[in-house]
């Protein structure tokens, strides 16, 4: 089983690596981080924080773009191009296919995170900012946010087109960072239906703000280890649930 999952995961990784989109996004991300050098002279003593914040935000933004753009088509493309026939005609179970695709995508994102983080630390060195290891906590939490987002993209990718999948995943990402607003909306709205929908979405959609500790890291605020551990556990449970749904949907499909 592991051999087959690894085969599919590595092939997904190889496909993305040989696609220019991934390389382009990583290069642009590093260029955006390097643009902090331009800001440095006009930053009035805040340069260090701006460079750190810009770098960490660029890592998150571009990795989210990769998860949405590349992740949103990984299953659909196999169906559209009919390469799925060649895989599922072999002793590959459908859940192995979905897990393999997901792992392949996480491998792509893991390597992207490492490369972008390396680029970020290089920018820190070049701009004379102390490259503190503590910044890596923010990158780690971004990794778990990406785990959820990739599972969302894979789930959509099992039954809608890549464009629809990208749009839906982006909507989940956007609302996932505004779940507190949903709760407030439900609290202040007099209409029961709005209250219900607001609270339903609040509980069903992932609370992605839990993974944003960039502000604390950049401003040297104390980190809450318990909150971080709980967020990681939340990411694992949420991802697992989404993949189960994706497998359920995929298992029932005819090709």
């Amino acid at each position, binding site marked *: 089983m592991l051999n*087959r999952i690894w085969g*599919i995961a590595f*092939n997904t990784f190889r496909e993305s690596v*040989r696609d220019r989109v991934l390389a382009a996004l990583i290069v642009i991300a590093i260029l955006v981080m390097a643009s902090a050098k331009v800001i440095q002279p006009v930053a009035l003593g805040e340069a260090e924080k701006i460079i750190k914040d810009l770098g960490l935000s660029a890592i998150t933004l571009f990795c989210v773009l990769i998860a949405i753009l590349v992740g949103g088509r990984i299953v659909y493309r196999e169906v559209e191009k009919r390469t799925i*026939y060649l895989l*599922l*005609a*072999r*002793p590959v179970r459908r859940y192995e296919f979905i897990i393999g695709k997901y792992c392949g995508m996480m491998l792509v994102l893991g390597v992207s995170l490492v490369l972008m983080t390396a680029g970020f630390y290089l920018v820190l060195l070049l701009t004379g900012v102390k490259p503190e290891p503590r910044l890596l906590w923010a990158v780690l939490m971004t990794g778990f946010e990406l785990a959820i987002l990739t599972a969302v993209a894979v789930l959509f990718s099992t039954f809608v087109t890549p464009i629809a999948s990208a749009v839906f995943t982006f909507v989940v990402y956007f609302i996932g960072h505004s779940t507190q607003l949903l709760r407030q909306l439900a609290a202040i709205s007099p209409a029961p239906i709005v209250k219900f929908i607001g609270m339903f979405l609040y509980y069903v959609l992932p609370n992605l703000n839990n993974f944003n500790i960039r502000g604390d890291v950049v401003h040297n605020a104390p980190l809450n280890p318990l909150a971080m551990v709980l967020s990681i556990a939340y990411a694992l449970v949420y991802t697992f649930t989404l993949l189960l749904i994706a497998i359920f949907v995929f298992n029932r499909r005819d090709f």
Partner: protein
Amino acid sequence: MTVVNQPVIETVRLSKSYRTGFRMKRVQALSELNLQVEQGEIFGFLGPNGAGKTTTIKILIGLAQPSSGFATVLGRAPRDPRVKRRVGFLPESPYFYEYLTAVEFLALTAQLSGVSRSEIPGRVRQMLKLVRMEHAAHQQMRGFSRGMLQRIGIAQALIHDPEVVILDEPMGGLDPIGRKEFRDIIVSLREQGKTVFFSTHILADVEMICDRVGIIVGGKMVEIGRLSEILTGEVESIEITLQGVSGKFRKGLERIAQRSIESGDLLLLTVKSEEDVERVLAIAREAQAKVRSIIPRSLTLEEFFMARVKSAGRNGGV
């Protein structure tokens, strides 16, 4: 004690319908299809486009589920991984990962089929040699022609040395030399004791290599059996070629013949019976025309196929 040989492939009252289009109209793709393929035979699955060949194959491969009835391959459900390990499959107009080289792709398919890591390089080399693609082993497949892709397609279907090989339109995109090589490969598979099930609409391939054929029209099996049983060899018509028939006799001859074709001073007449031949020859003698040839013709697979497709269409099968 009697040994009951279980068919390698069997479908029993296999039906498949699905909904399509904006109005979700129900389409009956297969209707109570029964077929059995025995071990070691080459079975040709014939049918016009849209007859249900690919739908049947998708069910046999486990890519689709039947709406009713059932299919078994090697005595088990097609989706069973134990079955898939022993089955090779080539889809119609295959599209592969174009960013992979031929070697990388075949190694991946071998890995997913359960070929042990140490055996993979040897199997890949062997398959590339079999389909004569050694020269392009390390090229990315994005530059491959349709014929080259078809060759890689057969290589990936055979990479794990399967007992049953299911091929959907394997001759598509091949030139005459490629088709000949493919036929040789299929026949060699039978010699190794493997069972081959292939769909096609190229009748010449079927006539040359198949042990048995099934004809599917409009989702229904309209004929199944050995070619020798289907094409009995009985004389269906007689073709007579006359030379120098003058105008006034021609009308009389054309009334007797089922069909007549004029070419220069030659007249080709197709008649149904011996009596008709006698009548034509009598007129020819009177007209002082020369008899160039009299050839009895038996039914060809093409004529048989066309007749079955037409009659199924009249009966609402198409």
